[in-house]
């Protein structure tokens, strides 16, 4: 019951802050709303007993991605006059499309009978198991991911610095 209450709190936070992320006039505020959204998602993860995920959600998303985004916003701030419109011309079609899509999928979800597949579960912390998996069964993807991160790191530096040389 308590978890239900917490779920609704997080859900409302997620939805509201997400809406603000997309509609906010100031991109800077958007980034801050994004932080809140991501934080709430971490909360949802806790409700799902995924504590480790909640942790890296906060660390990586809020700690890295949002901060990076804010840096970039600051770097591009010069031309971002406040009078510029922040949304393009397809707001209404996009709104309709999103609503339709959401409604359709929700209807589908409601129509589906999940009960036969649901297995009753007991809460337990699977962080240790996760660690084992990542370094045993999934060690190759894990290492590949790390290489990917390295490539992304080098790549982003290259993109930005090559550009500098041209100037």
């Amino acid at each position, binding site marked *: 019951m308590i*978890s239900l209450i917490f*779920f609704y709190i997080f859900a409302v936070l*997620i*939805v509201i802050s*997400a809406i603000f*992320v*997309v509609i906010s006039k100031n*991109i800077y505020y*958007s*980034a801050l709303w*994004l932080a809140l*959204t*991501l934080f709430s*998602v971490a909360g*949802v*993860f806790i409700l*799902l007993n995924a504590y*480790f*995920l909640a942790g*890296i*959600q906060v660390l*990586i*998303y809020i700690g890295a*991605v949002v901060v*990076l*985004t804010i840096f*970039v*916003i600051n*770097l*591009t701030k010069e031309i971002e006059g406040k009078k510029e419109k*922040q*949304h*393009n011309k397809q707001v209404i*079609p*996009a709104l309709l499309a*999103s609503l339709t899509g*959401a409604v359709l*999928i*929700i209807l589908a*979800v409601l129509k589906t009978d999940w009960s036969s*597949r*649901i297995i009753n579960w*007991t809460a337990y912390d*699977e962080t240790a*198991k*996760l660690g084992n998996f*990542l370094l045993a069964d*999934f060690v190759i993807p894990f290492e590949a*991911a790390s290489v*990917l*991160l390295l*490539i992304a790191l080098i*790549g*982003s530096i290259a*993109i*930005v610095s*090559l*550009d500098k040389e*041209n*100037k």
Partner: protein
Amino acid sequence: MLTLMHFIILSVILFFIGIFGVLTRRNAIGILMSLELIFNAININMVAFSKFLTPQEIYGVIFTVFIITVAAAESVLGLAIILAIYRSGQKIFADEMNLMKW
């Protein structure tokens, strides 16, 4: 009682808010942020299905870890590209970047 339905509906709503953002934000950084919303919606979905349908396995969680990793890499690169475009053409709005047309 917290059910699978709750999480799925939440993730659907979050997903479509993200879609809406991707479709409408002019600022490229804004698009990128909306993309993050979409990723999060997926993540919620992943974890919820994993927990409700196959509680003994943790593949859903592991996939989420990888998604987060890739999403981080993606946003880094995306931001780098945005920065590069911004530097070369003083452009930040996605609808102004339309060189690749007929």
